Protein backbone atom coordinates (compact mmCIF):
# COMPACT_ATOMS: atom_id res chain seq x y z
CA UNK A 1 0.00 0.00 0.00
CA UNK A 2 1.45 3.44 -0.90
CA UNK A 3 2.17 6.00 1.82
CA UNK A 4 -0.48 8.31 0.31
CA UNK A 5 -3.06 5.62 0.67
CA UNK A 6 -1.99 4.95 4.26
CA UNK A 7 -2.21 8.67 5.08
CA UNK A 8 -5.64 8.88 3.49
CA UNK A 9 -6.93 5.96 5.53
CA UNK A 10 -5.46 7.48 8.67
CA UNK A 11 -7.11 10.81 7.94
CA UNK A 12 -10.46 9.14 7.23
CA UNK A 13 -10.29 7.30 10.54
CA UNK A 14 -9.31 10.47 12.39
CA UNK A 15 -12.19 12.47 10.87
CA UNK A 16 -14.64 9.69 11.66
CA UNK A 17 -13.60 9.43 15.31
CA UNK A 18 -13.27 13.14 15.94
CA UNK A 19 -16.40 14.10 14.02
CA UNK A 20 -18.56 11.92 16.24
CA UNK A 21 -16.94 12.96 19.51
CA UNK A 22 -16.14 16.60 18.94
CA UNK A 23 -19.12 17.91 20.93
CA UNK A 24 -18.25 15.73 23.91
CA UNK A 25 -14.61 16.78 23.81
CA UNK A 26 -15.47 20.46 23.76
CA UNK A 27 -18.04 20.27 26.55
CA UNK A 28 -15.76 18.19 28.75
CA UNK A 29 -12.92 20.65 28.19
CA UNK A 30 -15.18 23.64 28.80
CA UNK A 31 -16.45 22.29 32.12
CA UNK A 32 -12.94 21.27 33.16
CA UNK A 33 -11.41 24.68 32.60
CA UNK A 34 -14.62 26.76 32.79
CA UNK A 35 -13.59 28.94 29.87
CA UNK A 36 -14.78 28.49 26.27
CA UNK A 37 -11.65 30.12 24.82
CA UNK A 38 -9.30 27.86 26.73
CA UNK A 39 -11.51 24.87 25.94
CA UNK A 40 -11.09 25.53 22.23
CA UNK A 41 -7.31 25.66 22.65
CA UNK A 42 -7.32 22.47 24.70
CA UNK A 43 -9.42 20.70 22.07
CA UNK A 44 -7.09 21.86 19.30
CA UNK A 45 -4.06 20.50 21.18
CA UNK A 46 -5.99 17.32 21.86
CA UNK A 47 -6.74 16.82 18.18
CA UNK A 48 -3.08 17.33 17.28
CA UNK A 49 -1.91 14.85 19.88
CA UNK A 50 -4.60 12.38 18.89
CA UNK A 51 -3.54 12.65 15.26
CA UNK A 52 0.08 11.89 16.11
CA UNK A 53 -0.86 8.99 18.37
CA UNK A 54 -3.75 7.56 16.39
CA UNK A 55 -1.99 4.23 15.93
CA UNK A 56 -2.14 3.72 19.70
CA UNK A 57 -5.94 3.60 19.48
CA UNK A 58 -6.56 -0.05 18.71
CA UNK A 59 -10.36 -0.04 18.66
CA UNK A 60 -12.52 2.86 17.56
CA UNK A 61 -14.99 1.82 20.24
CA UNK A 62 -12.44 2.95 22.84
CA UNK A 63 -12.01 6.35 21.21
CA UNK A 64 -14.15 8.29 23.65
CA UNK A 65 -12.21 7.35 26.79
CA UNK A 66 -8.95 7.72 24.88
CA UNK A 67 -9.78 11.23 23.68
CA UNK A 68 -11.18 12.37 27.03
CA UNK A 69 -7.93 11.24 28.65
CA UNK A 70 -6.01 13.39 26.20
CA UNK A 71 -8.32 16.36 26.89
CA UNK A 72 -7.70 15.93 30.61
CA UNK A 73 -3.94 15.89 30.15
CA UNK A 74 -3.94 18.82 27.72
CA UNK A 75 -6.01 20.83 30.18
CA UNK A 76 -3.50 20.08 32.96
CA UNK A 77 -0.65 21.02 30.64
CA UNK A 78 -2.35 24.27 29.69
CA UNK A 79 -2.74 25.32 33.30
CA UNK A 80 0.78 24.19 34.19
CA UNK A 81 2.10 26.37 31.37
CA UNK A 82 0.01 29.43 32.10
CA UNK A 83 -0.20 29.10 35.87
CA UNK A 84 -3.68 30.58 35.78
CA UNK A 85 -5.48 31.71 38.87
CA UNK A 86 -8.66 30.07 40.10
CA UNK A 87 -11.73 31.48 38.40
CA UNK A 88 -13.73 33.96 40.46
CA UNK A 89 -17.35 33.97 39.40
CA UNK A 90 -17.62 37.68 40.17
CA UNK A 91 -14.93 38.60 37.66
CA UNK A 92 -15.69 36.51 34.61
CA UNK A 93 -14.15 36.92 31.19
CA UNK A 94 -16.60 37.67 28.34
CA UNK A 95 -16.24 34.04 27.24
CA UNK A 96 -17.11 32.73 30.68
CA UNK A 97 -20.08 35.09 30.89
CA UNK A 98 -21.29 33.75 27.56
CA UNK A 99 -20.93 30.21 28.84
CA UNK A 100 -23.13 31.07 31.79
CA UNK A 101 -25.47 33.30 29.81
CA UNK A 102 -28.91 33.09 31.25
CA UNK A 103 -31.12 30.68 29.48
CA UNK A 104 -34.81 31.31 29.00
CA UNK A 105 -35.33 28.87 31.80
CA UNK A 106 -34.18 30.55 35.05
CA UNK A 107 -33.76 27.16 36.74
CA UNK A 108 -31.27 26.18 34.08
CA UNK A 109 -29.28 29.39 34.51
CA UNK A 110 -29.18 28.88 38.28
CA UNK A 111 -28.03 25.30 37.84
CA UNK A 112 -25.34 26.27 35.33
CA UNK A 113 -23.91 28.81 37.76
CA UNK A 114 -24.04 26.29 40.59
CA UNK A 115 -22.13 23.75 38.49
CA UNK A 116 -19.64 26.44 37.54
CA UNK A 117 -19.01 27.12 41.24
CA UNK A 118 -18.55 23.45 42.16
CA UNK A 119 -15.02 22.42 43.15
CA UNK A 120 -13.10 20.72 40.31
CA UNK A 121 -13.04 17.43 42.22
CA UNK A 122 -16.83 17.33 42.26
CA UNK A 123 -17.58 18.90 38.90
CA UNK A 124 -15.42 16.58 36.82
CA UNK A 125 -16.94 13.22 37.84
CA UNK A 126 -20.39 14.74 37.49
CA UNK A 127 -19.67 15.83 33.91
CA UNK A 128 -18.21 12.43 33.10
CA UNK A 129 -21.21 10.60 34.47
CA UNK A 130 -24.06 12.83 33.32
CA UNK A 131 -22.75 14.19 30.05
CA UNK A 132 -20.35 11.48 28.91
CA UNK A 133 -22.29 8.50 30.24
CA UNK A 134 -19.22 7.04 31.94
CA UNK A 135 -19.60 4.30 34.53
CA UNK A 136 -18.14 4.67 38.01
CA UNK A 137 -15.30 2.34 37.02
CA UNK A 138 -14.50 4.36 33.90
CA UNK A 139 -14.49 7.61 35.86
CA UNK A 140 -12.22 6.06 38.48
CA UNK A 141 -9.76 4.97 35.81
CA UNK A 142 -9.77 8.31 34.05
CA UNK A 143 -9.29 10.29 37.26
CA UNK A 144 -6.91 7.75 38.85
CA UNK A 145 -9.02 7.46 41.99
CA UNK A 146 -10.91 4.59 43.58
CA UNK A 147 -14.53 3.84 42.60
CA UNK A 148 -15.62 4.54 46.18
CA UNK A 149 -14.13 8.02 45.96
CA UNK A 150 -15.99 8.61 42.69
CA UNK A 151 -19.31 7.71 44.31
CA UNK A 152 -18.61 9.95 47.30
CA UNK A 153 -17.79 12.87 45.03
CA UNK A 154 -20.87 12.32 42.90
CA UNK A 155 -23.08 12.15 45.96
CA UNK A 156 -21.59 15.32 47.42
CA UNK A 157 -21.77 17.13 44.09
CA UNK A 158 -25.50 16.52 43.75
CA UNK A 159 -26.22 17.45 47.36
CA UNK A 160 -24.31 20.70 46.90
CA UNK A 161 -26.19 21.49 43.70
CA UNK A 162 -29.50 20.64 45.29
CA UNK A 163 -28.74 22.95 48.23
CA UNK A 164 -27.55 25.77 45.98
CA UNK A 165 -30.64 25.60 43.81
CA UNK A 166 -32.88 25.52 46.87
CA UNK A 167 -31.06 28.51 48.38
CA UNK A 168 -31.45 30.45 45.14
CA UNK A 169 -35.13 29.61 44.93
CA UNK A 170 -35.69 30.76 48.52
CA UNK A 171 -33.94 34.05 47.79
Amino acid at each position, binding site marked *: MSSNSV*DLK*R*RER*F*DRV*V*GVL*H*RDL*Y*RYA*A*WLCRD*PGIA*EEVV*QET*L*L*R*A*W*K*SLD*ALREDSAAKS*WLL*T*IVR*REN*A*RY*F*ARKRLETVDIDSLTPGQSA*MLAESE*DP*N*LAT*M*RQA*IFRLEDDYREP*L*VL*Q*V*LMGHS*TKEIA*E*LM*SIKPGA*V*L*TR*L*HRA*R*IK*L*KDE*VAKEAAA
Partner: protein
Amino acid sequence: MSASGKIMNCEDYREAIAADPSESFAGGAEHAAVCGSCSAYRAEMRALDDTITKALAIDVPELKIPDLPPIGEDDGNVVNMPFRRATRITTPAWIGIAASFALAAIIGVQFVGNGPESDRLLAETVLAHVDHEPWALKVTDVSVSAAQFERVVNPTIGTMDRNVGLVSYAQSCIINGNTIPHLIIQGEKGPVTLLLLPDEMVHGAVSLSGKSVNGVILPHGNGSIAIIGEREERIEELKRRVVDSVEWSI
Protein backbone atom coordinates in the same frame (compact mmCIF):
# COMPACT_ATOMS: atom_id res chain seq x y z
CA MET B 1 -30.31 -5.92 49.43
CA SER B 2 -27.02 -4.13 48.75
CA ALA B 3 -24.03 -5.53 46.90
CA SER B 4 -22.59 -6.63 50.24
CA GLY B 5 -25.68 -8.74 50.87
CA LYS B 6 -27.10 -6.48 53.59
CA ILE B 7 -30.59 -5.02 53.50
CA MET B 8 -30.27 -1.45 52.28
CA ASN B 9 -31.48 1.18 54.73
CA CYS B 10 -32.78 4.65 53.84
CA GLU B 11 -29.48 6.39 54.53
CA ASP B 12 -27.52 3.98 52.34
CA TYR B 13 -30.12 4.22 49.62
CA ARG B 14 -30.12 8.02 49.55
CA GLU B 15 -26.35 8.18 49.38
CA ALA B 16 -26.34 5.66 46.56
CA ILE B 17 -29.14 7.26 44.55
CA ALA B 18 -27.49 10.68 44.82
CA ALA B 19 -24.30 9.18 43.42
CA ASP B 20 -26.13 7.21 40.74
CA PRO B 21 -29.70 8.30 39.95
CA SER B 22 -29.95 5.57 37.29
CA GLU B 23 -30.12 3.18 40.25
CA SER B 24 -27.71 0.69 38.72
CA PHE B 25 -26.54 -0.43 42.19
CA ALA B 26 -27.78 -3.68 43.70
CA GLY B 27 -30.79 -3.58 45.96
CA GLY B 28 -31.88 -0.06 45.09
CA ALA B 29 -35.07 -0.83 43.23
CA GLU B 30 -36.16 -3.29 45.93
CA HIS B 31 -35.71 -0.67 48.65
CA ALA B 32 -37.53 2.09 46.74
CA ALA B 33 -40.42 -0.27 46.03
CA VAL B 34 -41.19 -0.56 49.73
CA CYS B 35 -40.17 2.92 50.93
CA GLY B 36 -42.36 5.78 49.74
CA SER B 37 -40.10 8.43 51.16
CA CYS B 38 -37.03 7.13 49.35
CA SER B 39 -39.05 6.65 46.20
CA ALA B 40 -39.94 10.35 46.35
CA TYR B 41 -36.27 11.19 46.98
CA ARG B 42 -35.34 9.23 43.88
CA ALA B 43 -37.83 11.23 41.82
CA GLU B 44 -36.33 14.42 43.22
CA MET B 45 -32.80 13.29 42.31
CA ARG B 46 -33.85 12.33 38.81
CA ALA B 47 -35.50 15.71 38.29
CA LEU B 48 -32.32 17.36 39.54
CA ASP B 49 -30.32 15.28 37.08
CA ASP B 50 -32.53 16.35 34.19
CA THR B 51 -31.71 19.96 34.98
CA ILE B 52 -28.00 19.15 35.41
CA THR B 53 -27.97 17.42 32.02
CA LYS B 54 -29.56 20.40 30.29
CA ALA B 55 -27.29 22.87 32.10
CA LEU B 56 -24.16 20.98 31.08
CA ALA B 57 -25.17 20.91 27.42
CA ILE B 58 -23.61 24.25 26.53
CA ASP B 59 -23.38 25.47 22.93
CA VAL B 60 -20.53 23.93 20.97
CA PRO B 61 -18.60 25.98 18.39
CA GLU B 62 -18.04 24.65 14.90
CA LEU B 63 -15.37 21.95 14.71
CA LYS B 64 -12.02 23.35 13.58
CA ILE B 65 -9.47 20.71 12.66
CA PRO B 66 -5.92 22.05 13.18
CA ASP B 67 -3.23 21.66 10.53
CA LEU B 68 -2.26 18.03 10.88
CA PRO B 69 1.43 17.38 10.21
CA PRO B 70 2.45 14.42 8.08
CA ILE B 71 3.22 11.55 10.39
CA GLY B 72 6.94 11.11 11.00
CA GLU B 73 7.76 14.72 10.11
CA ASP B 74 8.76 15.78 13.62
CA ASP B 75 9.83 12.43 14.95
CA GLY B 76 13.51 13.10 14.18
CA ASN B 77 14.55 13.27 17.83
CA VAL B 78 12.86 10.10 18.87
CA VAL B 79 15.27 7.31 19.68
CA ASN B 80 13.89 4.19 18.11
CA MET B 81 15.19 1.26 20.08
CA PRO B 82 15.66 -1.95 18.17
CA PHE B 83 13.00 -4.46 19.06
CA ARG B 84 13.97 -6.87 21.77
CA ARG B 85 11.50 -8.97 23.66
CA ALA B 86 11.52 -8.26 27.37
CA THR B 87 13.01 -11.07 29.40
CA ARG B 88 13.01 -11.75 33.10
CA ILE B 89 16.05 -10.28 34.72
CA THR B 90 18.39 -12.70 36.45
CA THR B 91 18.21 -12.59 40.24
CA PRO B 92 21.10 -10.48 41.49
CA ALA B 93 23.55 -12.41 43.62
CA TRP B 94 23.37 -9.98 46.48
CA ILE B 95 19.61 -10.34 46.92
CA GLY B 96 19.03 -12.35 50.02
CA ILE B 97 22.37 -11.36 51.53
CA ALA B 98 21.25 -7.87 52.39
CA ALA B 99 17.74 -7.61 53.74
CA SER B 100 17.30 -4.01 52.78
CA PHE B 101 19.42 -0.92 52.96
CA ALA B 102 18.81 2.54 51.68
CA LEU B 103 20.92 3.86 48.89
CA ALA B 104 19.87 7.45 49.15
CA ALA B 105 23.44 8.60 49.41
CA ILE B 106 24.16 7.64 45.84
CA ILE B 107 21.74 10.20 44.49
CA GLY B 108 23.22 13.51 43.48
CA VAL B 109 23.50 13.30 39.76
CA GLN B 110 23.78 16.03 37.21
CA PHE B 111 22.29 16.71 33.84
CA VAL B 112 24.89 16.29 31.12
CA GLY B 113 24.46 17.75 27.68
CA ASN B 114 23.64 20.80 25.63
CA GLY B 115 19.99 20.12 24.99
CA PRO B 116 17.27 22.72 25.08
CA GLU B 117 16.15 24.42 28.27
CA SER B 118 13.04 22.27 28.52
CA ASP B 119 15.18 19.09 28.63
CA ARG B 120 17.38 20.59 31.35
CA LEU B 121 14.32 21.59 33.39
CA LEU B 122 12.84 18.12 33.07
CA ALA B 123 16.15 16.55 34.13
CA GLU B 124 16.21 18.77 37.21
CA THR B 125 12.61 17.91 38.04
CA VAL B 126 13.27 14.19 37.66
CA LEU B 127 16.35 14.29 39.86
CA ALA B 128 14.62 16.40 42.51
CA HIS B 129 11.79 13.92 42.56
CA VAL B 130 14.08 10.90 42.93
CA ASP B 131 15.96 12.72 45.70
CA HIS B 132 12.71 13.18 47.59
CA GLU B 133 11.83 9.50 47.65
CA PRO B 134 15.12 7.86 48.74
CA TRP B 135 13.30 5.28 50.88
CA ALA B 136 12.14 3.64 47.69
CA LEU B 137 15.73 2.72 46.83
CA LYS B 138 16.00 -0.55 48.69
CA VAL B 139 17.68 -3.79 47.84
CA THR B 140 14.99 -6.40 48.18
CA ASP B 141 13.60 -9.51 46.59
CA VAL B 142 10.00 -8.63 47.41
CA SER B 143 7.93 -7.41 44.49
CA VAL B 144 4.88 -5.14 44.71
CA SER B 145 1.51 -6.81 44.29
CA ALA B 146 -0.04 -7.09 40.85
CA ALA B 147 -2.95 -4.96 42.08
CA GLN B 148 -0.64 -2.15 43.20
CA PHE B 149 1.29 -2.31 39.94
CA GLU B 150 -1.94 -2.11 37.92
CA ARG B 151 -3.22 0.81 39.98
CA VAL B 152 -0.06 2.75 39.18
CA VAL B 153 0.48 1.66 35.58
CA ASN B 154 -3.18 1.99 34.67
CA PRO B 155 -4.94 2.27 31.31
CA THR B 156 -4.86 6.08 31.36
CA ILE B 157 -1.05 5.82 31.26
CA GLY B 158 -0.47 2.75 29.16
CA THR B 159 0.87 -0.72 29.64
CA MET B 160 4.17 -2.12 30.86
CA ASP B 161 5.45 -5.67 30.78
CA ARG B 162 6.21 -6.53 34.41
CA ASN B 163 8.84 -9.00 33.30
CA VAL B 164 11.21 -6.12 32.70
CA GLY B 165 12.55 -6.87 36.19
CA LEU B 166 11.55 -7.42 39.80
CA VAL B 167 9.36 -4.37 40.52
CA SER B 168 9.91 -3.59 44.20
CA TYR B 169 8.17 -0.21 44.37
CA ALA B 170 5.25 1.33 42.46
CA GLN B 171 3.61 4.61 43.34
CA SER B 172 1.72 7.28 41.46
CA CYS B 173 3.60 10.55 41.71
CA ILE B 174 3.11 14.04 40.35
CA ILE B 175 5.63 15.45 37.89
CA ASN B 176 4.84 18.84 36.36
CA GLY B 177 1.20 18.50 37.36
CA ASN B 178 0.73 15.07 35.78
CA THR B 179 0.25 11.80 37.62
CA ILE B 180 3.01 9.40 36.56
CA PRO B 181 4.17 5.92 37.57
CA HIS B 182 7.29 5.90 39.76
CA LEU B 183 8.72 2.40 39.76
CA ILE B 184 11.81 0.74 41.18
CA ILE B 185 13.11 -2.43 39.63
CA GLN B 186 15.93 -4.50 40.99
CA GLY B 187 18.80 -4.30 38.55
CA GLU B 188 21.96 -6.35 38.52
CA LYS B 189 23.87 -3.79 40.59
CA GLY B 190 21.11 -2.34 42.75
CA PRO B 191 17.75 -0.58 42.63
CA VAL B 192 16.91 1.21 39.40
CA THR B 193 14.39 4.05 39.30
CA LEU B 194 11.97 4.26 36.37
CA LEU B 195 9.74 7.27 35.87
CA LEU B 196 7.21 6.80 33.07
CA LEU B 197 6.48 10.25 31.67
CA PRO B 198 3.79 10.03 28.98
CA ASP B 199 3.36 13.82 28.97
CA GLU B 200 7.01 14.90 28.89
CA MET B 201 8.74 15.01 25.55
CA VAL B 202 12.52 15.43 25.28
CA HIS B 203 14.45 16.36 22.17
CA GLY B 204 16.78 13.40 22.40
CA ALA B 205 18.29 11.12 25.01
CA VAL B 206 19.21 13.19 28.08
CA SER B 207 22.15 11.77 30.03
CA LEU B 208 22.22 11.98 33.80
CA SER B 209 25.55 11.23 35.36
CA GLY B 210 27.09 11.24 38.84
CA LYS B 211 29.81 9.71 40.95
CA SER B 212 27.75 6.68 41.87
CA VAL B 213 24.87 6.67 39.45
CA ASN B 214 24.15 6.45 35.79
CA GLY B 215 20.90 7.51 34.18
CA VAL B 216 19.12 8.71 31.11
CA ILE B 217 15.81 10.22 30.03
CA LEU B 218 14.80 8.57 26.79
CA PRO B 219 12.23 9.89 24.33
CA HIS B 220 9.46 7.37 23.87
CA GLY B 221 6.56 8.14 21.56
CA ASN B 222 4.99 11.40 22.70
CA GLY B 223 6.52 11.05 26.14
CA SER B 224 9.71 9.88 27.77
CA ILE B 225 11.08 7.43 30.32
CA ALA B 226 13.67 8.25 32.99
CA ILE B 227 15.98 5.40 34.03
CA ILE B 228 18.39 5.94 36.89
CA GLY B 229 20.55 3.15 38.25
CA GLU B 230 23.87 2.59 39.94
CA ARG B 231 27.08 3.61 38.20
CA GLU B 232 27.91 0.02 37.33
CA GLU B 233 24.43 -0.83 36.14
CA ARG B 234 24.31 -1.86 32.49
CA ILE B 235 22.01 0.94 31.45
CA GLU B 236 22.40 0.29 27.75
CA GLU B 237 21.05 -3.20 28.22
CA LEU B 238 18.37 -2.06 30.62
CA LYS B 239 17.00 0.78 28.56
CA ARG B 240 16.23 -1.47 25.63
CA ARG B 241 14.23 -3.74 27.85
CA VAL B 242 12.41 -0.87 29.53
CA VAL B 243 11.55 0.94 26.31
CA ASP B 244 10.32 -2.26 24.70
CA SER B 245 8.15 -2.98 27.71
CA VAL B 246 6.23 0.31 27.76
CA GLU B 247 3.39 1.35 25.50
CA TRP B 248 1.48 4.59 26.08
CA SER B 249 -2.27 4.76 25.89
CA ILE B 250 -2.02 8.01 23.95
